């Protein structure tokens, strides 16, 4: 059984009068420790798929298994718990809390984690060291560069030690050099045993992955190893 399995997943949005089917039968397996890239034209449904993988949203139909657990029909609370246990998100626009410091931003997921671990703060500092921001702990996001903000976001995604890192165009706002820095951090996480999924428009970024899938019009049309 793969770590992650989607069978015949569809997603339909109800917009005013019309229904828009964004995902039209996705079949996808992701193995533990894999590094997967997803590409596709704008509006093809990549982000929608990411949100489903990350349990931020539920599919309209289809089967969905994570770590041997059927999760397509879980309650909102149970999905929140899965997000806090299994998933770390990295977004294109970083999505940090503007009024919180770097330290507080990275700590955010620990507030909603039921696990009792005493060394949360130590772990936060350890992660900030890994992304090279241990001297910026008291800064506000607005005092950081884009690359630094994205590194904070990566540290935040890792703080609850999730198995799955989902990055939706993590380098979309960054220049080439910074993009390479961010991708090398994500690669390092992959080497440390994380399962990483990256959505990107950039072939160079996709090049870091072990496997690439392409989405066109809500369907997976191409898989390259």
């Amino acid at each position, binding site marked *: 059984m793969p770590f992650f399995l989607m069978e015949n997943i569809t997603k339909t949005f109800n917009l005013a009068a019309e229904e828009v089917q964004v995902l039209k039968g996705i079949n996808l397996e992701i193995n533990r420790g894999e590094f997967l890239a997803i590409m596709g034209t704008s509006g093809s449904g990549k982000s929608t798929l990411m949100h489903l993988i990350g349990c931020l949203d539920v599919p309209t139909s289809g089967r969905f298994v994570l770590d041997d657990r059927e999760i397509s029909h879980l309650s909102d609370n149970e999905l929140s718990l899965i*997000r806090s246990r299994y998933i770390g998100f990295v977004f294109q626009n970083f999505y940090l809390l503007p*009024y919180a410091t770097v330290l507080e931003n990275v700590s955010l997921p620990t507030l909603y984690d039921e696990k009792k671990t005493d060394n949360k703060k130590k772990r936060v500092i350890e992660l900030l060291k890994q992304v090279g921001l241990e001297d910026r702990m008291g800064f506000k996001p607005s005092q950081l560069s884009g690359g630094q903000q994205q590194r904070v976001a990566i540290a935040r995604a890792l703080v609850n030690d999730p198995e799955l890192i989902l990055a939706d165009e993590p380098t979309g706002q960054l220049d080439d050099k910074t993009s390479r820095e961010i991708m090398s951090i994500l690669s390092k996480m992959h080497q440390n045993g994380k399962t990483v999924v990256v959505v990107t428009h950039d072939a160079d970024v996709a090049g870091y992955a072990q496997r690439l899938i392409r989405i066109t019009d809500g369907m997976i049309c191409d898989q390259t190893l």
Partner: protein
Amino acid sequence: MNRPANLFSQSIKATFAFKLRAFFCIISVALGVASIVIIVAAVEGAYKKAFDIVEMFGPDAVIIVGGNDEARAVGGNKDKTITLEDVKAVRESFACAYVVVPVSMVGMTTVFHRDRKERTFIIGSDHNYSRAWSWPVVSGRDLAKEDVKRMKNVALIGRYLADELFEDKDPVGKYLFAGGLPIRIAGVLKERGTTPRGHNMDNRMVVPISTAMRKMQNEKKYVSMLRVRFIDQNNLEFHVEELRMFLRQRHRLHEGEPDDFMIISPKEIIKFLVALTGSLVLFIGIAGITTLVVAGFVLANLFLLSVKERTREIGIRRAVGARQQDILFQFLGESVILTTAGGLLGFVTGFFSSKLLVFVAQFPICFSWKAFAAGIVMSWAVGIVSGLQPALHAARLNPIEAIR
């Protein structure tokens, strides 16, 4: 740290992060709570004052004075309506009254002892005077039935008069002169102090009513007032009505004619006090409630605005594992923290402005935990009521909508 503490710390952080919102919330709640606090303290103060006054007056007692407001305005002798016969009749007919005491006001008179003199208030009454006012005789003896019967020249004097005329010597058995009469001091009344209006209760002399009427006032029939105390103070109102009917009948008043006497009971006193404080309390009360309701609406809107502004934040929190109720409690926590801060500020404001009120208007104010509790409870109520809808809105946001 456990989850509620985590959420609370987030609420506090956000409270400080959005300073303008905090400022408006705190000020608007503080204004409303300040007035509520003043009201509670004023009501308590009025009650306490009324209670003190009733306690001093005698909760089981009434006073019947001759005449009425109308007669007094016209002037003349119309306030002479209560007779010694009335007193006797009341005493005989009302078994439920344990004290029925007539009083004659002789008025301010200069009294002499050797080379000393002092103006004092002379009252005529009977052997029950001390009992009728719960005013014990602390040295010497009380007036006796015999003193009244025989029209004796004896007196009880107040502490102040005793000190002025006799200094540190014992006045009992000594003589003073009042209106040419030599009067022997029988006893001294316990010290009672000065009334809030500045009337010195201890500058007085009480002589047998017969002596006062015949020898000082040249009066055979009328007394100034009548003091009655009832055994059963719970039925006082009923007794007052009975007494009124009884006197009307004796005075042969026809239906429709006004009373030619006034019965002052503790209830009258409380009515008077309530009328005095009531209008101010009502005014501040309406102002306070209005302010709080307005504050509630302002708050609800501010919070909703804040939630809309922070949609992204909510999406982020949901993405990293926050449940709906975590969001709900965080936002509700923020509103309650803000209104509580407003409540505390309001209490302090109310406390000091009521001190000012006491200073400017001699308004009776009494601060206790009740005023504090009322302020805090009101601020929580406003916080929860106005914060709930925005917080629910925040909690129910679809995470993917919030994060797009």
